[in-house]
């Protein structure tokens, strides 16, 4: 067991957790932030993407202890004052989600893309999202939503 101290969605948290606790498990089971989803066991699907110190990360690829002291943003922390982030708005407007399961990881990943590339091309968006699997949408409306968000951010 060890003490994990993080700033999650702007709130300081301190919890004891076993040393082998994945960041994804820590968020879901210890902080009850169940918006971060687990879709696979090989770090392929991307449903668990969060931001750690501003960069997107598959939270199943890191131990909570590895990121001790970091600032973590999850899908629950993307709204400001109850207003959805432009990426969330764009996904809603352009039907970039169906069952919603891959959506949190997809949105967090897409937000990071626009932090790094303000006006990505279709190809750049599709390449960036290669690590996020969606089984519902065929990706077309996700790509459209990311482009839409790029005009608003």
């Amino acid at each position, binding site marked *: 067991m060890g003490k994990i101290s993080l700033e999650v969605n702007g709130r300081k948290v301190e919890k004891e957790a076993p040393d082998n606790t994945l960041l994804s498990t820590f968020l879901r089971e210890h902080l009850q*932030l169940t918006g971060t989803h687990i879709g696979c066991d090989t770090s392929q699907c991307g449903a668990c993407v969060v931001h750690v110190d501003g960069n997107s990360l598959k939270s199943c690829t890191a131990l909570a202890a590895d990121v001790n002291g970091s600032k973590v943003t999850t899908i629950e922390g993307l709204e400001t004052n109850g207003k959805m982030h432009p990426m969330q708005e764009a996904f809603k407007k352009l039907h970039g989600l*169906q069952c919603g399961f891959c959506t949190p990881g997809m949105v967090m990943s897409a937000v990071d893309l626009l932090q790094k590339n303000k006006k990505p091309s279709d190809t750049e968006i599709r390449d960036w999202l290669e690590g996020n699997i969606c089984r519902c949408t*065929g990706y077309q409306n996700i790509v459209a939503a990311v482009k839409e968000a790029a005009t608003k951010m």
Partner: protein
Amino acid sequence: MASLVGSRVERKEDKRFLTGKGRYTADINLANQTYAIFVRSPHARASIKKLNIDKALKSSGVVSILTGKEIADDKIGGLIAGWAIRSEDGTEMKCPGNPPLAKDNVNFVGDPVAVVIAESLAEAKEAAEKVEVDYKVLKAVTSTADAMNGDTIHEGIDKNLCFDWLLGDRQKVKEAFDKADKVISIDIINNRLIPNAMEPRACVADYNAASEEITLYTTSQNPHLSRLIMSAFGNVAPEHKLRVVAPDVGGGFGSKINVYNEDIVCSWAAKKINRAIKWVAERSESFLTDIHGRDHVTHAELAVTKDGKFLGFKNETIANLGAYARVFGTVTPTYLFGPCATGVYEIPAAYTNVKAVYTNTAPVDAYRGAGRPEATYTIERLVEKASMELGIDKTELRIKNFPTAFPFKQTLVHTVDSGDYVAGMEKAKQMADYKGFEARRKESEAKGKLRGIGVTSYFEACGIAPSAAVMSLGCGVGLWESAEVRFNPTGQVTVYTGSHSHGQSHQTTFAQIAADELGVPIENIDIVHGDTDKGTFGMGTYGSRSLAVGGIAIVNACKKIVEKGKRVTAKMLEANPEDVEFKDGEFIVSKSNKKKTIGEVAFACYLPGVRDEMKSPLPEGDEPGLKETSFYDPSNFSFPAGTHIAEVEIDPETGHVKLEKYTACDDFGRIINPMVVEGQVHGGLAQGIGQALYENAEYDETGQLMTGSYMDYTMPRADNFPEFNIGYTCTHATTNPLGVKGCGEAGAIAAPPTVMNAVIDALGGQEVTMPATAEKVWKACKNLKKSNAKAA
């Protein structure tokens, strides 16, 4: 008031999904819950000589370990096949028992033999490692084509044959083939797929000792149907003591229709240990134990005249059922397949023969399209081959054999009420710039690339389904759907539907329908589903049935509300009910022009008393309240149809296939929400293109799944697709009041032959099996080079 039906209404469900507030089964934690881990067979076929749990029981945190013996002792029933299919000779199909925990024999890798329940997940995992199972490993049967020659898997089921089924007339087909100028024949494999909904299966079972009620939260497409099966066949609890809740469900595609071993075991065990139990599949368990899809080996022939008229069709298929026959396992390769085998064509004589075989692989059941993709792939590959062999343009050959009038009575089963296949073909050709293809082919050739174009015209039978029809064919239940519309006294509406959304957008599209029917703002309408304690009953969501069956039940329940509203308005305004009209949420007495809003009428219905001069608004015979229910049983299937066109470019140096263009022109009848329909088409296409180019479930000869993770099974990614070009034609269904047909499966049905026809066109007609991987295509390119060199 503007109609909402037909508008791009943004989804009511989105905000919770986008802000992390979705509530999926794995997000549910109950007080004092335990954790389950299933001990699964590592062998494809074995008998269990000994199972020892002594060491595991001593492991830290263990609460209970249960095995096939306790299941049998408690007389808990097994998993079932939902459809009884008869063989051509009239005998009933042969189904083995399928206990939720295997006691004597295991029949596929992943077949569960025990459940370990512990205080924490880690402790359950550790203890599960200590369960000792002594197996006698037997030779596995894994090949679809050779299954009938393998060892007998289930005692008493000769040749591993579940049934040998025939639809159609062999003699008429023989006569048609005797008259043919040419016979086109083809051998094809419809590759095995793994559905891979992004949310792995999960369940949380709870027992309330006070009410003696079990509650099961589970990842299901059809909670009421699950409850019925678990109660009637699983013997878990009577239906009134079993509540099944399917909360937010992260995709299904058919894989979450079945009641699974874990649902039954956790429900039963929760009562036994009197504590809640949580189980969440790891993705590797999903790969091994979720139902798989497709897996047919087919020989088919088409008899044609030299000018391209189709005379006869035969289809001989071996369908792999996997280790056990499950809910839709036996109907998928029969009544969902055979009746669609002749496609969109007038073919006077046809038969389909299916031998369904058991193998030591995961059960095969309904996966998006279920039977219709396999049927469409067969006929459309044949027609494409016929066009090459006859030298007739692929679109002209199709048009030549389209029906000329509707209703279109097909040779085998269906009478298609509506459609315009020629219009669909013409529009698709225009959208795809079919005429410009040869120029594009030359451009590709100039770059050293091979370019091909592929066409598919399809129809599907969905809106599953008329009870009289399906029960006569062997279905164990009727496939109607229910809806209940409840008005609150203050005017908001709650609509309960028996169908289930796991991505399909019911909360929005069903609310659009109810808003139009009742004239109530959409914000004031809630759609509720997924909980057996809330809605009356329902058959769930599959076979593109939610709208064409469930949506109509909502319309009918709303119409009953309006009828009562007219009676109440008449009483309130002292008019004749026949003189009251309803429009845009207002009841208007035509003679006096006096009116009441539906909100006022709803309120009045809840205040039936008499005070001072206020009279009761309730006519004699009407009870207080405003709530109506409908159980709608459709009169026919619905028949979406369309034409899809794909273009691929192949690099002969690498064998890489690039999907350059994909055009889909579909007729779904009336469209409720174009935005949602586009999404359904995109998603279906991605799965269909996945089947054609990327996905394949593969077992080795010992029955080990070689594609058991996302490292091995190619899931299509964002960079695998071009932007799809989507369009519509529209003929309204004549068999339901909304004129709707269904759109959920079209993409998965049409895309595999469309893409493969394009690939094979680029390869000069050389057959390649799905998925057309770079390796296979590269080899074909080398053959092409050789034969071109010979020709020169």
